[in-house]
């Protein structure tokens, strides 16, 4: 049994895969969807799901929903009556526990493991929080899967189709659009994009605003908006009714928005809402969202040099994709090629359950130990789900003391007794056999071991099953992960698309000394996520801290940093300092940042000023691309200000949205700034091309010269296309090749020594640096080139990156 859970913003669901088919587990009320809502009463008793949902309107102070939108933040949501406050992951754990209890009722055992889905755009802190929620709910083993991959598996795991897929997943809070490809029965994610601020809830909100406007035309209402904490209860009621109306409009051309006793008007009369909403009017209201979602689709296709015609099928996922106008527009964009037979509401949970099978994550409680079963112990390794019709099965016998290994082994398929192999056992007690599968079904096998006398031997474990279906590539990393270095560069450990789990070690050097036995002297190794070569433009996701070293560490000490991401994107980090024999694993997980509202207000003010300044420079430069890059920013800033007001009214989601909006606005400003700096970068590239070409031509090897020609070509392409990132990369490669060539010049070391002598006051330890320079000079005078070079290399270790760069790169202490 394999379990998949869709932990959604609005609703959650749980599916079970038994090897043959996937079924949804209904809640105790018989529904496939459980509202992701938690209520706590004055005694601290918790109610979840539909029972809690009913209190969203009537008791908003003690009932919370939509907490997925603030997963990974340190924001505690208060329950006034009980006087308690819970983190979003703790609330998610309550929803998960409720789903698992339903599974227990349906299956007869409490699941020990499950796959939980997360949006593709979730970053490491949000994934970490989701895993924690799983553990808090009682799961001992949790894996995560990105929602679009889960949907694609559900849609295509038994399909014969090949080609490109597009999964259009519009949930309550986010839009995820993913491009996938099935080739030779193997499904892989090509790329994905999305909008963290676009979901069904935004459509509910626009209907709320419309309804308030309509009501105001008839009477004088009290201040009824998100900025006003006193109106929260009335707005909750109205929002729930709007959501219901939105759902009804998916099935019928007209619906009535009804709320009894919404609030009192300014004359003290009770306001009852009774508004007719036509599907066409609603379509008009949500048109900006539809246009935004299509823009995300177009952007994703363009980024991958694909057209709508290249996409063989579109899979719709999420309740809002049932809205006819949205569905029609997206479907028309792809010529009506929509995958049929996929339930948008349960596809994610179904796919997650199938994925649990592909990674062998069984939900059943662990069986009795092998030794308790009679017979020779055998470990069998096989792919639980595969597209390969002839996969390998590897086995290893684990004989107890006194037990003998079998002579030969064969595998029998249990549908008519087809036998595979009659393989000998290796000296270490293992065998490798290929079996043939019946297509698109579960195949049951039994291992038979034979002793030297030709007799069958009893085995503790002998049966296993393989499902022939779509093989799913390991979940890819959504954004590159690396370490920020002190010169504001990023050492990429795992590029975007790297399959998880992944582990990699790189060697670094400290840029300064670290005092022994000090808890205050901390050397930071910041872990960042993002695509920029500049560390500060990426997102800080973790911080490894080296402190309390056994003896003083000089600058330039070798540090081996290992980053490990498990299948769910959980980050593990360690730094080994070989000189000390010490290992540091003190990773601080960084939360999705939240700031106080006053800080956010100041930040908005600062960002406004920065936007004005960059806009002025953009107009002065006459650079159309830079102007275009920031033309939407005033709208985004206005939205940030609106959300700040809503946050002051108690809307936690709005507070998080302010932060994310500011991050996105500043990223756009960074990009615009990079464009404005283009003339300088372009001039630098031109100068470097001339100077470095001469250097490489004179001192480089033929291979270096050939590579340099290629890099020159890339730089020329980047200059033509005005691509800042590519040109920065090409410049970096040119510098490396030039440096490699330069060292072949016998005069190069002398030039280096002169430079170091002239800049010795910039060293972190001036006395030590001067001492080493003197030593190098002596080695040169004595005609010892090896000592001369080695000593100069040592001097460099006392020359740090600039303080400004180090500050920008999250205070990194390594290079």
């Amino acid at each position, binding site marked *: 049994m394999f379990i998949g859970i869709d932990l959604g913003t609005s609703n959650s669901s749980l599916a079970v895969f038994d090897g043959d088919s996937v079924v949804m587990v209904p809640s105790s009320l018989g529904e496939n969807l459980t509202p992701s809502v938690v209520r706590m009463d004055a005694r601290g008793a918790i109610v979840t799901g539909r029972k809690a949902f009913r209190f969203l309107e009537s008791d908003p102070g003690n009932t919370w929903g939509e907490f997925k939108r603030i997963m990974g933040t340190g924001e505690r949501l208060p329950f006034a009556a009980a006087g308690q406050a819970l983190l979003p992951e703790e609330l998610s754990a309550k929803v998960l526990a409720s789903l698992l209890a339903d599974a227990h009722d349906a299956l007869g055992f409490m699941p020990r493991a499950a796959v939980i889905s997360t949006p593709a755009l979730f970053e490491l802190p949000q994934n970490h929080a989701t895993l924690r929620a799983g553990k808090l709910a009682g799961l001992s083993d949790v894996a995560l899967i990105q929602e679009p991959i889960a949907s694609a598996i559900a849609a295509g795991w038994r399909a014969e189709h090949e080609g490109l897929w597009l999964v259009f997943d519009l949930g309550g809070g986010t839009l995820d659009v993913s491009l996938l490809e099935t080739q*030779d029965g*193997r499904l892989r994610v090509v790329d994905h994009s999305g909008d963290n601020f676009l979901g069904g809830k935004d459509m509910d909100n626009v209907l709320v605003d419309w309804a308030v406007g309509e009501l105001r035309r008839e009477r004088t209402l009290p201040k009824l908006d998100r900025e006003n904490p006193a109106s929260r209860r009335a707005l909750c009621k109205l929002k729930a009714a709007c959501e219901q109306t939105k759902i009804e409009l998916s099935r019928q051309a007209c619906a009535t928005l009804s709320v009894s006793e919404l609030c009192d008007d300014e004359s003290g009369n009770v306001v009852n809402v009774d508004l007719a909403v036509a599907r066409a009017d609603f379509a008009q209201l949500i048109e900006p969202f539809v246009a935004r979602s299509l823009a995300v689709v177009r952007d994703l296709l363009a980024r991958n040099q694909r057209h709508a015609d290249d996409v063989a099928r579109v899979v719709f996922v999420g309740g809002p994709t049932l809205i006819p106008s949205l569905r029609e527009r997206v479907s028309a964009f792809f010529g009506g090629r929509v995958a049929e037979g996929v339930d948008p509401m349960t596809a994610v949970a179904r796919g997650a359950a199938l994925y649990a099978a592909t990674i062998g994550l069984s939900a059943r409680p662990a069986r009795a130990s092998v030794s308790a079963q009679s017979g020779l112990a055998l*470990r069998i390794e096989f792919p639980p789900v595969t597209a390969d019709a002839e996969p390998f099965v*590897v086995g290893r016998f684990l004989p107890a003391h006194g037990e003998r290994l079998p002579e030969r082994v064969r595998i029998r398929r249990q549908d008519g007794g087809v036998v595979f192999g009659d393989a000998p056992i290796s000296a270490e007690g293992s065998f490798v056999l290929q079996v043939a599968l019946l297509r698109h079904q579960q195949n049951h096998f039994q291992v038979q071991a034979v002793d030297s006398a030709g007799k069958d031997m009893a085995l503790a474990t002998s049966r296993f099953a393989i499902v022939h279906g779509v093989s799913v590539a390991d979940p890819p990393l959504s954004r590159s992960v690396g370490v920020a270095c002190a010169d504001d560069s990023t050492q990429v450990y795992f590029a975007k698309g790297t399959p998880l789990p*992944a582990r990699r070690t790189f060697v670094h*050097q400290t840029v300064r000394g670290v005092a022994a036995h000090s808890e205050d002297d901390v050397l930071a190794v910041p872990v960042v996520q993002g695509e920029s070569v500049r560390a500060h433009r990426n997102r800080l996701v973790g911080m490894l801290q080296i402190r309390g070293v056994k003896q003083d560490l000089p600058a330039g000490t070798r540090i081996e940093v290992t980053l490990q991401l498990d299948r769910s994107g959980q980050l593990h980090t360690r730094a080994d300092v070989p000189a000390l024999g010490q290992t540091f694993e003190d990773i601080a997980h960084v939360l999705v940042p939240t700031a106080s509202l006053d800080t956010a207000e100041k930040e908005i003010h600062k960002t406004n000023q920065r936007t004005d300044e960059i806009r002025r420079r953009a107009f002065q430069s006459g650079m159309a691309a830079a102007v275009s890059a920031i033309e939407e920013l005033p709208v985004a800033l206005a939205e940030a200000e609106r959300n700040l007001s809503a946050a002051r009214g108690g809307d936690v989601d709005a507070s998080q949205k302010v932060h994310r909006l500011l991050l996105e606005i500043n990223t756009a400003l960074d990009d615009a700034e990079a464009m404005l700096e283009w003339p300088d970068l372009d001039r630098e590239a031109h100068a470097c091309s001339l100077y470095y070409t001469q250097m490489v031509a004179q001192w480089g090897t033929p291979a270096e010269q050939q590579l340099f020609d290629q890099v020159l070509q890339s730089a020329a392409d980047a200059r033509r296309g005005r691509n800042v990132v590519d040109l920065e990369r090409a410049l970096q490669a040119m510098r490396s090749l030039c440096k490699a060539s330069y060292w072949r010049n016998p005069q190069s070391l002398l030039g280096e020594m002169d430079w170091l002598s002239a800049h010795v006051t910039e060293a972190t330890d001036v006395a030590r640096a001067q001492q080493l320079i003197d030593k190098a000079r002596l080695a040169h005078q004595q005609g010892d080139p090896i000592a001369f070079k080695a000593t100069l*290399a040592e001097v460099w270790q006392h020359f740090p990156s600039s303080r400004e760069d180090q500050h920008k790169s999250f205070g990194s202490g390594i290079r």
Partner: protein
Amino acid sequence: MPSDDICLENCYARHLENPFLVLGLAPVASGADVERTGQKLLAMLAAGLIEAENYTTPFGPAMRTAEQVRWAMAELRDPCRRLGHEWWARGWQGVEVGT
């Protein structure tokens, strides 16, 4: 920038993880070969078979891990990334460098 020696060490580390080297396949291997060999190696590593624990490189044997095998399979599934690795793997072919 770290010192030249460390840059070189990091550079070697990256190249020794060439997916074709990790999987023990030639640069002409088909997609199906890559998948099947990868799956077989993963199963062998999971079962703790010694013969799967190392692979040959021009600099001598290197230790093979399940993460490397998964990464190698994913790299070779992407046509653009595969091209780059093929280029390097062809360069490695026939190269014998003393350890």
